[in-house]
């Protein structure tokens, strides 16, 4: 009986897992190489990226911008959206190489007519997904700007942007 229960529990968990997975209608734009486990080196780089860039803002997933965008961002940290975000050259190199490895390769998501986008919020897939978001939602103090992913996407820092995880401050769930 116990064995049977265990098996059915496992089956239920499995089916639940498949259901959850299938329910995820969002494009997996956060990290293209999701299925591949990160190498030791990449794990260290990812941790460094999160620590350094995440000190001021959410460490946006590399897959949100193409290589050329990350290259430009990382070579312009002396004036990073109006602030000095420089760090020592070893750390800069390590983070740049990590971002380039996991950068977007899908032009439909991130290409801005061949130009070098520095803002994720200007890329085509992002613009399309946020077309119904009003200025009022964005400028309220709890959000501040469209760059503040976690204000509404409650699991953005883990790379998850599912619709059911959205909660817009003072507006509620996105339905």
């Amino acid at each position, binding site marked *: 009986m116990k064995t049977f229960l265990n098996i059915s529990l496992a089956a239920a968990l499995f089916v639940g897992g498949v259901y959850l997975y299938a329910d995820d209608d969002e494009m997996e734009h956060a990290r293209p190489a999701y299925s591949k486990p990160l190498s030791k080196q990449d794990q260290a780089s990812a941790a460094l990226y999160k620590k350094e860039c995440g000190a001021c803002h959410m460490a946006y997933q590399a897959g949100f911008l193409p290589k050329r965008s990350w290259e430009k961002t990382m070579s312009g940290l002396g004036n990073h959206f*109006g*602030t000095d975000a420089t760090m*020592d050259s070893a750390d800069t190199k390590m983070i740049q190489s990590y971002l380039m490895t996991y950068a977007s390769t899908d032009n439909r998501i991130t290409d801005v007519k061949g130009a070098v986008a520095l803002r994720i919020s200007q890329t085509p897939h992002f613009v399309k997904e946020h077309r119904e978001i009003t200025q009022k939602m964005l400028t309220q103090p709890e959000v501040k700007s469209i760059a503040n992913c976690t204000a509404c996407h409650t699991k953005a820092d883990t790379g998850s942007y599912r619709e059911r995880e959205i909660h817009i401050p003072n507006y509620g769930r996105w339905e």
Partner: protein
Amino acid sequence: MKYLTILLIGSMSLMGASTEVVQYMNELSSVAKTENKSFAGFDAARGKEIFTSTHTGKQGKPMSCTSCHTTNLSNSGKNSLTGKVIEPLSPKANPQRLTSAKEVKKWLKRNFVDVYAREGTAQEKGDVLTYIIKN
């Protein structure tokens, strides 16, 4: 010698900065001496003035260290651009502070540029660190 080491480590932890940060402050002190003949040690009051006064920042707008860190170093602050919470600067409130010379150098460089639109001098950096340690 052993007692001296213990005493030294003890007094440093009382100061609120790690050995490597104290070492960095000694380096700043030597540079300050060469740059300013009348330099007679770092001063928390000068550091407070540097920290709390308003200047035209990198973006051409009025800016102060307190714009993000607030005037109470034991409180957490908020990045004035992104809204991200900044843990308290005071080592008394946040034991992680002033433990890594690399971190200290990085932030002093960045934040002087953001608030003063230039890098800080060795004396200014030492004064600010002294103010932070004492608060």
